[in-house]
Protein backbone atom coordinates (compact mmCIF):
# COMPACT_ATOMS: atom_id res chain seq x y z
CA UNK A 1 0.00 0.00 0.00
CA UNK A 2 1.40 3.38 -0.98
CA UNK A 3 0.58 6.04 1.56
CA UNK A 4 0.88 9.81 1.42
CA UNK A 5 0.91 11.78 4.66
CA UNK A 6 0.33 15.54 4.73
CA UNK A 7 2.14 17.26 7.57
CA UNK A 8 2.53 20.80 8.87
CA UNK A 9 5.16 22.51 11.00
CA UNK A 10 3.49 24.62 13.66
CA UNK A 11 4.65 26.81 16.54
CA UNK A 12 4.52 25.09 19.89
CA UNK A 13 2.21 27.26 22.01
CA UNK A 14 0.95 25.00 24.81
CA UNK A 15 3.20 26.57 27.42
CA UNK A 16 3.67 29.98 25.83
CA UNK A 17 2.32 33.36 26.74
CA UNK A 18 1.32 34.46 23.24
CA UNK A 19 1.51 38.00 21.88
CA UNK A 20 -0.30 39.50 18.93
CA UNK A 21 1.56 41.47 16.26
CA UNK A 22 0.78 45.17 15.92
CA UNK A 23 -1.34 44.68 12.78
CA UNK A 24 -3.48 42.19 14.81
CA UNK A 25 -3.41 39.68 11.97
CA UNK A 26 -0.87 37.22 13.31
CA UNK A 27 0.58 35.92 16.52
CA UNK A 28 4.15 37.05 17.17
CA UNK A 29 6.03 33.87 16.27
CA UNK A 30 9.51 35.26 16.81
CA UNK A 31 10.34 33.52 20.07
CA UNK A 32 8.34 30.34 19.50
CA UNK A 33 9.82 26.89 18.98
CA UNK A 34 8.40 24.82 16.11
CA UNK A 35 7.22 21.24 16.10
CA UNK A 36 5.32 18.82 13.90
CA UNK A 37 1.57 19.34 14.30
CA UNK A 38 0.48 16.88 16.98
CA UNK A 39 -2.25 15.26 14.85
CA UNK A 40 0.19 14.84 11.94
CA UNK A 41 2.67 13.09 14.20
CA UNK A 42 0.05 10.41 14.84
CA UNK A 43 -0.74 10.28 11.10
CA UNK A 44 2.87 9.69 10.04
CA UNK A 45 3.29 7.07 12.76
CA UNK A 46 0.16 5.28 11.57
CA UNK A 47 1.39 5.35 7.96
CA UNK A 48 4.75 3.87 8.91
CA UNK A 49 3.03 1.15 10.96
CA UNK A 50 0.72 0.25 8.07
CA UNK A 51 3.72 0.06 5.75
CA UNK A 52 5.63 -2.12 8.19
CA UNK A 53 2.70 -4.58 8.18
CA UNK A 54 2.82 -5.01 4.42
CA UNK A 55 4.58 -3.65 1.39
CA UNK A 56 4.53 -0.17 -0.04
CA UNK A 57 5.95 3.27 0.50
CA UNK A 58 5.25 6.31 2.62
CA UNK A 59 5.62 9.81 1.21
CA UNK A 60 5.44 12.84 3.50
CA UNK A 61 4.34 16.16 2.01
CA UNK A 62 4.30 19.65 3.42
CA UNK A 63 3.70 23.15 2.10
CA UNK A 64 6.23 25.53 3.52
CA UNK A 65 9.54 27.32 3.50
CA UNK A 66 12.95 25.72 3.71
CA UNK A 67 12.90 25.63 7.51
CA UNK A 68 9.71 23.59 7.36
CA UNK A 69 11.77 20.74 5.88
CA UNK A 70 12.60 19.99 9.49
CA UNK A 71 9.26 18.16 9.89
CA UNK A 72 9.83 16.24 6.65
CA UNK A 73 13.24 15.08 7.89
CA UNK A 74 11.56 13.98 11.07
CA UNK A 75 9.03 11.97 9.02
CA UNK A 76 11.87 10.41 7.04
CA UNK A 77 13.60 9.49 10.30
CA UNK A 78 10.36 7.86 11.52
CA UNK A 79 10.36 5.63 8.44
CA UNK A 80 8.89 7.55 5.50
CA UNK A 81 10.63 6.67 2.23
CA UNK A 82 10.55 10.04 0.60
CA UNK A 83 9.34 13.58 1.14
CA UNK A 84 8.18 16.55 -0.88
CA UNK A 85 8.04 20.18 0.06
CA UNK A 86 5.83 22.51 -1.90
CA UNK A 87 7.39 25.95 -1.75
CA UNK A 88 4.61 28.57 -1.76
CA UNK A 89 7.02 31.39 -2.62
CA UNK A 90 5.52 34.54 -1.15
CA UNK A 91 1.97 33.23 -1.14
CA UNK A 92 -0.09 32.71 1.97
CA UNK A 93 -2.65 29.96 1.60
CA UNK A 94 -5.78 29.45 3.66
CA UNK A 95 -7.28 26.02 4.31
CA UNK A 96 -9.04 25.87 0.97
CA UNK A 97 -5.96 27.02 -0.96
CA UNK A 98 -3.83 24.47 0.87
CA UNK A 99 -6.20 21.66 -0.12
CA UNK A 100 -6.17 22.74 -3.78
CA UNK A 101 -2.40 22.90 -3.96
CA UNK A 102 -1.97 19.54 -2.23
CA UNK A 103 -4.54 18.01 -4.59
CA UNK A 104 -2.67 19.14 -7.68
CA UNK A 105 0.66 17.77 -6.47
CA UNK A 106 -0.75 14.50 -5.11
CA UNK A 107 -2.69 13.84 -8.34
CA UNK A 108 0.71 13.18 -9.94
CA UNK A 109 1.82 10.58 -7.38
CA UNK A 110 0.47 7.00 -7.28
CA UNK A 111 -1.16 6.21 -3.92
CA UNK A 112 -3.76 4.04 -2.20
CA UNK A 113 -4.24 6.01 0.97
CA UNK A 114 -3.76 9.58 2.18
CA UNK A 115 -3.52 10.35 5.88
CA UNK A 116 -3.90 13.84 7.32
CA UNK A 117 -4.27 15.03 10.91
CA UNK A 118 -7.82 15.98 11.94
CA UNK A 119 -6.70 19.59 12.35
CA UNK A 120 -3.67 21.81 12.87
CA UNK A 121 -2.74 23.09 16.31
CA UNK A 122 -2.29 26.66 15.09
CA UNK A 123 -5.43 27.56 13.15
CA UNK A 124 -7.71 24.74 14.44
CA UNK A 125 -9.74 24.60 11.23
CA UNK A 126 -10.07 20.90 10.50
CA UNK A 127 -10.93 21.34 6.84
CA UNK A 128 -7.87 20.68 4.68
CA UNK A 129 -7.94 16.85 4.73
CA UNK A 130 -11.58 16.38 3.74
CA UNK A 131 -11.37 19.17 1.14
CA UNK A 132 -8.35 17.41 -0.34
CA UNK A 133 -10.34 14.15 -0.47
CA UNK A 134 -13.10 15.96 -2.35
CA UNK A 135 -10.74 17.56 -4.86
CA UNK A 136 -9.26 14.11 -5.56
CA UNK A 137 -12.67 12.38 -5.62
CA UNK A 138 -11.71 9.99 -2.81
CA UNK A 139 -13.69 8.10 -0.21
CA UNK A 140 -13.05 9.71 3.16
CA UNK A 141 -13.53 9.42 6.90
CA UNK A 142 -12.82 11.93 9.65
CA UNK A 143 -11.58 11.63 13.24
CA UNK A 144 -10.20 8.13 12.73
CA UNK A 145 -8.98 6.17 15.77
CA UNK A 146 -8.36 2.77 14.21
CA UNK A 147 -7.38 1.40 10.77
CA UNK A 148 -7.41 -2.27 9.72
CA UNK A 149 -6.29 -2.95 6.15
CA UNK A 150 -8.28 -5.45 4.04
CA UNK A 151 -8.08 -6.37 0.36
CA UNK A 152 -8.91 -3.17 -1.56
CA UNK A 153 -10.56 -1.60 1.46
CA UNK A 154 -10.09 -0.59 5.08
CA UNK A 155 -12.10 -1.09 8.23
CA UNK A 156 -11.91 2.23 10.06
CA UNK A 157 -13.04 3.30 13.48
CA UNK A 158 -14.13 6.93 13.87
CA UNK A 159 -14.62 8.73 17.15
CA UNK A 160 -17.98 10.38 17.68
CA UNK A 161 -18.83 12.49 20.67
CA UNK A 162 -20.08 11.07 23.95
CA UNK A 163 -17.71 8.11 24.04
CA UNK A 164 -19.28 6.53 20.99
CA UNK A 165 -17.40 5.12 18.02
CA UNK A 166 -18.44 4.18 14.52
CA UNK A 167 -16.97 1.27 12.55
CA UNK A 168 -17.13 1.52 8.77
CA UNK A 169 -15.85 -0.18 5.68
CA UNK A 170 -14.24 2.19 3.22
CA UNK A 171 -13.02 1.54 -0.34
CA UNK A 172 -9.49 2.40 -1.41
CA UNK A 173 -8.17 4.79 -2.55
CA UNK A 174 -9.24 6.84 0.43
CA UNK A 175 -8.31 9.73 2.67
CA UNK A 176 -8.56 9.56 6.44
CA UNK A 177 -8.10 12.33 8.98
CA UNK A 178 -6.35 10.85 11.99
CA UNK A 179 -7.21 11.61 15.61
CA UNK A 180 -4.63 11.85 18.39
CA UNK A 181 -4.25 8.70 20.46
CA UNK A 182 -4.62 6.30 17.50
CA UNK A 183 -1.11 4.97 18.27
CA UNK A 184 1.96 5.83 20.30
CA UNK A 185 4.30 7.78 18.03
CA UNK A 186 7.89 6.55 18.18
CA UNK A 187 10.71 8.59 19.61
CA UNK A 188 12.89 10.25 16.99
CA UNK A 189 16.56 10.63 17.88
CA UNK A 190 18.89 13.19 16.35
CA UNK A 191 20.93 10.21 15.11
CA UNK A 192 17.94 8.87 13.19
CA UNK A 193 17.30 12.28 11.65
CA UNK A 194 20.94 12.46 10.54
CA UNK A 195 20.75 8.97 9.03
CA UNK A 196 17.60 9.90 7.11
CA UNK A 197 19.35 12.85 5.47
CA UNK A 198 20.18 10.64 2.49
CA UNK A 199 16.53 9.98 1.68
CA UNK A 200 14.88 11.83 -1.18
CA UNK A 201 13.40 15.24 -0.39
CA UNK A 202 12.06 16.88 -3.52
CA UNK A 203 11.09 20.55 -3.70
CA UNK A 204 8.19 21.65 -5.90
CA UNK A 205 7.52 25.32 -6.54
CA UNK A 206 3.93 26.52 -6.27
CA UNK A 207 4.72 28.93 -9.12
CA UNK A 208 5.24 25.90 -11.42
CA UNK A 209 1.83 24.38 -10.69
CA UNK A 210 -0.08 26.64 -13.12
CA UNK A 211 -2.74 28.02 -10.81
CA UNK A 212 -4.60 31.17 -11.75
CA UNK A 213 -4.12 33.65 -8.90
CA UNK A 214 -7.88 33.61 -8.31
CA UNK A 215 -7.92 29.85 -7.64
CA UNK A 216 -5.96 30.31 -4.47
CA UNK A 217 -7.43 33.57 -3.22
CA UNK A 218 -8.21 33.19 0.48
CA UNK A 219 -11.84 32.47 1.29
CA UNK A 220 -11.51 33.13 4.99
CA UNK A 221 -9.84 36.40 5.96
CA UNK A 222 -8.58 37.26 9.41
CA UNK A 223 -9.90 40.69 10.37
CA UNK A 224 -8.51 40.85 13.86
CA UNK A 225 -6.82 38.68 16.45
CA UNK A 226 -7.13 39.38 20.14
CA UNK A 227 -6.17 37.76 23.40
CA UNK A 228 -8.78 36.71 25.91
CA UNK A 229 -8.55 38.54 29.22
CA UNK A 230 -6.04 36.96 31.60
CA UNK A 231 -7.65 34.50 34.01
CA UNK A 232 -11.01 35.55 32.56
CA UNK A 233 -13.68 35.31 35.20
CA UNK A 234 -11.95 33.17 37.82
CA UNK A 235 -11.42 34.42 41.33
CA UNK A 236 -7.65 34.13 41.49
CA UNK A 237 -6.04 32.63 44.53
CA UNK A 238 -2.77 34.42 45.11
CA UNK A 239 0.04 34.03 47.59
CA UNK A 240 2.74 31.40 47.92
CA UNK A 241 2.00 27.71 47.32
CA UNK A 242 1.30 27.09 51.01
CA UNK A 243 -1.28 29.87 51.15
CA UNK A 244 -2.83 28.73 47.86
CA UNK A 245 -3.03 25.14 49.13
CA UNK A 246 -4.65 26.31 52.35
CA UNK A 247 -7.27 28.24 50.39
CA UNK A 248 -7.96 25.28 48.09
CA UNK A 249 -8.51 22.99 51.09
CA UNK A 250 -10.81 25.57 52.60
CA UNK A 251 -12.91 25.70 49.42
CA UNK A 252 -13.10 21.90 49.35
CA UNK A 253 -14.41 22.00 52.88
CA UNK A 254 -16.97 24.71 52.10
CA UNK A 255 -18.22 22.76 49.11
CA UNK A 256 -18.71 19.70 51.27
CA UNK A 257 -16.28 17.29 49.62
CA UNK A 258 -13.82 17.28 52.48
CA UNK A 259 -14.32 17.09 56.22
Amino acid sequence: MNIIVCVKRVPSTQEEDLKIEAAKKEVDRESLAYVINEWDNYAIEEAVRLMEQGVGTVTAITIGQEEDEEVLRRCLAMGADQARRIDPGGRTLDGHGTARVLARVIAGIPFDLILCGVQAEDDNQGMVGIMLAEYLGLAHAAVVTGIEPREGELIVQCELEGGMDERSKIKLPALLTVQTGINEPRYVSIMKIKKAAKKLLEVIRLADLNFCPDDLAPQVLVEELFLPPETGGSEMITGDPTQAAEKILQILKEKGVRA
Partner: protein
Amino acid sequence: MGGIFVVVEHRQGKVRDITLEMLSKAGELKNDLGGDLTAVLLGWETGSLIESLRGRADRILVIEDERVKNFQAEVYQLILQQLIQEVHPSLTLIGQTAWGLDLAPCLAVQLGFPLVTDCLDIKIEAGKPTALRQIYGGKVFARVSLKESPGYLATIRPGAISLDPSGDGPTEVVKKEFPSGLPESKKQLLELIESESREVDIAQAEFLVSVGRGVGEEENLALVRELAHSLGAVLSCSRPIVDKKWLPKYHQVGTSGKSVKPKVYLALGISGAFQHLAGISGAGTVIAVNKDPRAPIFRVAQYGVAQDIFKIIPALMEQINNK
Protein backbone atom coordinates in the same frame (compact mmCIF):
# COMPACT_ATOMS: atom_id res chain seq x y z
CA MET B 1 -33.21 32.73 -2.59
CA GLY B 2 -31.79 33.87 0.73
CA GLY B 3 -32.44 32.46 4.15
CA ILE B 4 -30.60 29.97 6.28
CA PHE B 5 -30.28 26.18 6.26
CA VAL B 6 -29.50 24.34 9.45
CA VAL B 7 -28.42 20.73 8.91
CA VAL B 8 -30.09 18.66 11.62
CA GLU B 9 -27.76 16.34 13.48
CA HIS B 10 -29.41 13.44 15.23
CA ARG B 11 -28.27 10.16 16.63
CA GLN B 12 -30.24 7.08 17.71
CA GLY B 13 -33.60 8.79 17.30
CA LYS B 14 -32.70 11.99 19.15
CA VAL B 15 -31.96 15.49 17.89
CA ARG B 16 -28.55 16.48 19.22
CA ASP B 17 -28.14 19.69 21.24
CA ILE B 18 -25.89 21.26 18.61
CA THR B 19 -28.89 21.30 16.25
CA LEU B 20 -31.00 23.32 18.69
CA GLU B 21 -28.06 25.66 19.34
CA MET B 22 -27.66 26.28 15.61
CA LEU B 23 -31.39 26.90 15.24
CA SER B 24 -31.22 29.48 18.06
CA LYS B 25 -28.38 31.32 16.36
CA ALA B 26 -30.01 31.06 12.93
CA GLY B 27 -33.27 32.47 14.29
CA GLU B 28 -31.31 35.53 15.39
CA LEU B 29 -29.34 35.87 12.12
CA LYS B 30 -32.45 35.53 9.98
CA ASN B 31 -33.52 39.05 10.93
CA ASP B 32 -30.27 40.49 9.56
CA LEU B 33 -30.00 38.23 6.57
CA GLY B 34 -33.62 38.06 5.43
CA GLY B 35 -35.42 34.97 4.17
CA ASP B 36 -36.63 31.86 5.97
CA LEU B 37 -35.03 29.49 8.41
CA THR B 38 -35.10 25.90 7.19
CA ALA B 39 -34.09 22.88 9.26
CA VAL B 40 -32.94 20.17 6.88
CA LEU B 41 -33.64 16.74 8.29
CA LEU B 42 -32.41 13.57 6.64
CA GLY B 43 -33.40 10.46 8.54
CA TRP B 44 -35.67 7.47 8.99
CA GLU B 45 -38.74 7.28 11.24
CA THR B 46 -38.48 11.02 11.72
CA GLY B 47 -41.75 11.62 13.60
CA SER B 48 -40.28 12.40 17.01
CA LEU B 49 -37.35 14.26 15.45
CA ILE B 50 -39.79 16.56 13.67
CA GLU B 51 -41.63 17.14 16.96
CA SER B 52 -38.46 18.26 18.75
CA LEU B 53 -37.73 20.73 15.95
CA ARG B 54 -41.23 22.12 15.60
CA GLY B 55 -41.49 25.82 16.42
CA ARG B 56 -37.78 26.40 16.07
CA ALA B 57 -37.70 26.92 12.28
CA ASP B 58 -40.02 28.34 9.63
CA ARG B 59 -39.77 25.11 7.71
CA ILE B 60 -38.54 21.57 8.27
CA LEU B 61 -37.41 20.00 5.03
CA VAL B 62 -37.57 16.24 5.52
CA ILE B 63 -36.11 13.45 3.44
CA GLU B 64 -37.24 10.25 5.05
CA ASP B 65 -35.47 7.15 3.83
CA GLU B 66 -33.81 4.12 5.38
CA ARG B 67 -30.62 4.95 3.47
CA VAL B 68 -30.18 8.07 5.64
CA LYS B 69 -31.13 6.41 8.92
CA ASN B 70 -27.54 6.98 10.03
CA PHE B 71 -25.21 9.75 9.01
CA GLN B 72 -23.17 9.13 5.86
CA ALA B 73 -21.08 12.10 4.75
CA GLU B 74 -21.17 11.11 1.09
CA VAL B 75 -24.94 10.69 0.88
CA TYR B 76 -25.63 13.78 3.01
CA GLN B 77 -23.28 15.78 0.83
CA LEU B 78 -24.98 14.83 -2.44
CA ILE B 79 -28.47 15.47 -1.10
CA LEU B 80 -27.55 18.77 0.57
CA GLN B 81 -25.75 19.93 -2.53
CA GLN B 82 -28.92 19.40 -4.57
CA LEU B 83 -31.11 21.11 -1.97
CA ILE B 84 -28.79 24.10 -1.63
CA GLN B 85 -28.60 24.51 -5.39
CA GLU B 86 -32.40 24.38 -5.55
CA VAL B 87 -33.26 26.71 -2.64
CA HIS B 88 -30.12 28.94 -2.63
CA PRO B 89 -29.86 29.67 1.10
CA SER B 90 -27.36 32.45 1.82
CA LEU B 91 -25.94 30.56 4.76
CA THR B 92 -25.83 26.90 5.76
CA LEU B 93 -24.95 25.90 9.32
CA ILE B 94 -23.49 22.51 10.24
CA GLY B 95 -22.20 21.28 13.62
CA GLN B 96 -18.47 21.20 14.28
CA THR B 97 -18.82 17.56 15.31
CA ALA B 98 -17.25 14.33 14.05
CA TRP B 99 -19.99 14.27 11.42
CA GLY B 100 -19.70 17.94 10.50
CA LEU B 101 -15.95 17.57 10.14
CA ASP B 102 -16.57 14.87 7.53
CA LEU B 103 -19.38 16.69 5.73
CA ALA B 104 -18.81 20.45 5.63
CA PRO B 105 -15.42 20.59 3.84
CA CYS B 106 -16.50 18.37 0.94
CA LEU B 107 -19.80 20.18 0.60
CA ALA B 108 -17.92 23.50 0.44
CA VAL B 109 -15.68 22.21 -2.34
CA GLN B 110 -18.62 20.91 -4.39
CA LEU B 111 -20.60 24.13 -4.02
CA GLY B 112 -17.58 26.40 -4.38
CA PHE B 113 -18.66 28.25 -1.23
CA PRO B 114 -16.35 29.64 1.46
CA LEU B 115 -16.35 27.57 4.65
CA VAL B 116 -15.53 28.87 8.10
CA THR B 117 -15.21 26.17 10.74
CA ASP B 118 -15.57 25.88 14.50
CA CYS B 119 -17.36 29.20 14.99
CA LEU B 120 -18.23 30.41 18.48
CA ASP B 121 -20.45 33.11 17.08
CA ILE B 122 -21.65 34.45 13.76
CA LYS B 123 -22.81 37.92 12.86
CA ILE B 124 -24.11 39.41 9.65
CA GLU B 125 -22.30 42.57 8.58
CA ALA B 126 -23.17 44.27 5.29
CA GLY B 127 -25.10 41.17 4.21
CA LYS B 128 -22.13 38.86 4.77
CA PRO B 129 -21.35 36.56 7.69
CA THR B 130 -18.40 37.25 9.95
CA ALA B 131 -17.36 34.74 12.56
CA LEU B 132 -15.65 34.57 15.91
CA ARG B 133 -13.22 31.67 16.19
CA GLN B 134 -10.47 30.52 18.50
CA ILE B 135 -7.01 29.56 17.33
CA TYR B 136 -3.94 28.11 19.02
CA GLY B 137 -6.07 25.78 21.11
CA GLY B 138 -8.28 28.56 22.46
CA LYS B 139 -5.45 30.87 23.50
CA VAL B 140 -6.22 33.49 20.85
CA PHE B 141 -9.52 34.75 19.44
CA ALA B 142 -9.95 35.58 15.76
CA ARG B 143 -12.60 37.61 14.02
CA VAL B 144 -12.81 36.48 10.41
CA SER B 145 -14.71 37.52 7.33
CA LEU B 146 -15.52 35.55 4.21
CA LYS B 147 -14.88 36.13 0.54
CA GLU B 148 -17.90 37.44 -1.41
CA SER B 149 -20.01 34.49 -2.55
CA PRO B 150 -23.63 33.58 -3.42
CA GLY B 151 -23.65 31.25 -0.41
CA TYR B 152 -21.62 30.51 2.72
CA LEU B 153 -21.03 27.50 4.93
CA ALA B 154 -20.17 27.63 8.61
CA THR B 155 -19.69 24.97 11.25
CA ILE B 156 -20.65 25.83 14.81
CA ARG B 157 -18.86 24.65 17.93
CA PRO B 158 -21.13 22.58 20.18
CA GLY B 159 -21.94 24.34 23.44
CA ALA B 160 -20.81 27.76 22.23
CA ILE B 161 -24.28 29.18 21.71
CA SER B 162 -26.82 29.49 24.46
CA LEU B 163 -30.13 27.84 23.77
CA ASP B 164 -33.09 29.98 22.98
CA PRO B 165 -35.95 28.36 24.93
CA SER B 166 -38.64 29.63 22.59
CA GLY B 167 -40.12 27.20 20.15
CA ASP B 168 -43.61 28.34 19.43
CA GLY B 169 -43.49 29.84 15.94
CA PRO B 170 -45.47 28.23 13.11
CA THR B 171 -43.50 25.52 11.33
CA GLU B 172 -44.25 24.09 7.93
CA VAL B 173 -43.15 20.48 7.35
CA VAL B 174 -42.17 19.76 3.76
CA LYS B 175 -41.38 16.18 2.76
CA LYS B 176 -39.16 15.50 -0.22
CA GLU B 177 -38.30 12.29 -2.01
CA PHE B 178 -34.91 10.68 -1.64
CA PRO B 179 -33.18 11.67 -4.89
CA SER B 180 -32.81 8.95 -7.47
CA GLY B 181 -29.60 8.03 -9.22
CA LEU B 182 -27.18 8.63 -6.36
CA PRO B 183 -23.94 6.69 -6.88
CA GLU B 184 -23.17 3.78 -4.55
CA SER B 185 -21.46 5.00 -1.40
CA LYS B 186 -17.74 4.31 -1.03
CA LYS B 187 -18.10 4.06 2.72
CA GLN B 188 -20.48 1.80 4.60
CA LEU B 189 -21.36 1.95 8.25
CA LEU B 190 -20.88 -1.40 9.99
CA GLU B 191 -21.82 -0.52 13.56
CA LEU B 192 -22.03 2.12 16.27
CA ILE B 193 -20.06 1.12 19.35
CA GLU B 194 -20.92 2.45 22.80
CA SER B 195 -18.04 2.72 25.22
CA GLU B 196 -18.19 0.10 27.96
CA SER B 197 -18.72 1.24 31.48
CA ARG B 198 -15.96 0.38 33.91
CA GLU B 199 -15.49 0.04 37.63
CA VAL B 200 -14.46 3.72 37.87
CA ASP B 201 -17.37 5.86 36.82
CA ILE B 202 -16.14 9.44 36.75
CA ALA B 203 -19.60 10.58 35.61
CA GLN B 204 -20.99 9.63 39.05
CA ALA B 205 -18.14 11.05 41.15
CA GLU B 206 -18.81 13.87 43.62
CA PHE B 207 -15.23 15.06 43.71
CA LEU B 208 -12.79 14.75 40.82
CA VAL B 209 -9.09 15.50 40.81
CA SER B 210 -8.29 15.81 37.14
CA VAL B 211 -4.91 15.91 35.47
CA GLY B 212 -3.80 17.26 32.09
CA ARG B 213 -0.81 17.76 29.85
CA GLY B 214 0.85 19.96 32.48
CA VAL B 215 1.83 16.82 34.39
CA GLY B 216 4.64 16.50 31.85
CA GLU B 217 5.89 12.96 32.40
CA GLU B 218 4.16 9.68 33.10
CA GLU B 219 6.04 9.16 36.38
CA ASN B 220 4.62 12.45 37.72
CA LEU B 221 1.13 10.94 37.58
CA ALA B 222 1.91 9.16 40.84
CA LEU B 223 1.85 12.54 42.62
CA VAL B 224 -1.61 13.33 41.33
CA ARG B 225 -2.86 9.82 42.07
CA GLU B 226 -1.60 10.17 45.64
CA LEU B 227 -3.26 13.56 46.02
CA ALA B 228 -6.59 12.23 44.72
CA HIS B 229 -6.34 9.30 47.09
CA SER B 230 -5.54 11.50 50.10
CA LEU B 231 -8.42 13.83 49.29
CA GLY B 232 -10.85 10.96 48.77
CA ALA B 233 -11.41 12.09 45.20
CA VAL B 234 -11.74 10.10 41.99
CA LEU B 235 -8.95 10.59 39.46
CA SER B 236 -9.88 11.80 35.99
CA CYS B 237 -7.92 13.40 33.16
CA SER B 238 -7.98 15.34 29.91
CA ARG B 239 -7.41 13.87 26.48
CA PRO B 240 -3.59 14.12 26.15
CA ILE B 241 -3.19 11.75 29.11
CA VAL B 242 -5.34 9.09 27.43
CA ASP B 243 -3.70 9.70 24.03
CA LYS B 244 -0.37 8.89 25.65
CA LYS B 245 -1.92 5.76 27.22
CA TRP B 246 -0.99 6.93 30.71
CA LEU B 247 -4.56 6.37 31.91
CA PRO B 248 -7.35 4.26 30.37
CA LYS B 249 -10.03 6.00 28.33
CA TYR B 250 -12.71 5.68 31.02
CA HIS B 251 -10.87 8.35 33.03
CA GLN B 252 -11.24 10.92 30.23
CA VAL B 253 -13.43 13.98 30.70
CA GLY B 254 -14.72 15.77 27.60
CA THR B 255 -16.87 15.41 24.50
CA SER B 256 -15.09 12.27 23.36
CA GLY B 257 -14.85 10.97 26.92
CA LYS B 258 -17.43 11.56 29.63
CA SER B 259 -19.43 14.54 30.77
CA VAL B 260 -19.06 14.89 34.52
CA LYS B 261 -21.05 16.66 37.20
CA PRO B 262 -19.06 16.57 40.43
CA LYS B 263 -19.60 19.04 43.26
CA VAL B 264 -15.96 20.00 42.88
CA TYR B 265 -13.64 19.60 39.92
CA LEU B 266 -9.99 20.26 40.72
CA ALA B 267 -8.16 20.66 37.39
CA LEU B 268 -4.38 20.30 37.57
CA GLY B 269 -2.31 21.30 34.54
CA ILE B 270 -5.33 21.29 32.23
CA SER B 271 -5.32 24.14 29.71
CA GLY B 272 -8.98 23.62 28.80
CA ALA B 273 -9.53 22.66 25.18
CA PHE B 274 -13.18 23.32 24.33
CA GLN B 275 -13.89 19.60 24.11
CA HIS B 276 -12.74 19.34 27.70
CA LEU B 277 -14.66 22.38 28.92
CA ALA B 278 -17.85 21.00 27.36
CA GLY B 279 -17.44 17.93 29.55
CA ILE B 280 -17.31 19.92 32.81
CA SER B 281 -20.17 22.32 32.17
CA GLY B 282 -22.20 20.38 34.73
CA ALA B 283 -19.59 20.66 37.49
CA GLY B 284 -20.55 22.59 40.62
CA THR B 285 -17.29 24.33 41.43
CA VAL B 286 -14.22 24.26 39.21
CA ILE B 287 -10.84 25.00 40.78
CA ALA B 288 -8.05 25.24 38.21
CA VAL B 289 -4.30 25.20 38.74
CA ASN B 290 -2.30 26.08 35.64
CA LYS B 291 0.86 28.13 35.30
CA ASP B 292 -0.43 29.93 32.19
CA PRO B 293 -2.77 32.73 33.37
CA ARG B 294 -4.36 32.86 29.91
CA ALA B 295 -5.26 29.16 29.85
CA PRO B 296 -8.88 28.80 28.66
CA ILE B 297 -9.72 26.75 31.79
CA PHE B 298 -9.70 30.00 33.77
CA ARG B 299 -12.65 31.19 31.72
CA VAL B 300 -14.87 28.54 33.30
CA ALA B 301 -13.21 28.03 36.69
CA GLN B 302 -14.69 29.77 39.74
CA TYR B 303 -11.29 29.65 41.44
CA GLY B 304 -7.92 29.81 39.76
CA VAL B 305 -4.32 29.40 40.82
CA ALA B 306 -1.86 30.59 38.16
CA GLN B 307 1.03 28.56 39.53
CA ASP B 308 2.99 25.43 38.71
CA ILE B 309 1.14 22.27 39.77
CA PHE B 310 4.44 20.86 41.05
CA LYS B 311 4.51 23.62 43.66
CA ILE B 312 0.82 23.36 44.59
CA ILE B 313 0.53 19.55 44.81
CA PRO B 314 3.33 19.16 47.41
CA ALA B 315 1.91 22.08 49.39
CA LEU B 316 -1.50 20.38 49.43
CA MET B 317 0.02 17.06 50.47
CA GLU B 318 1.95 18.66 53.27
CA GLN B 319 -1.15 20.27 54.76
CA ILE B 320 -3.24 17.12 54.36
CA ASN B 321 -0.57 15.05 56.13
CA ASN B 322 -0.20 17.56 58.95
CA LYS B 323 -3.79 17.22 59.96
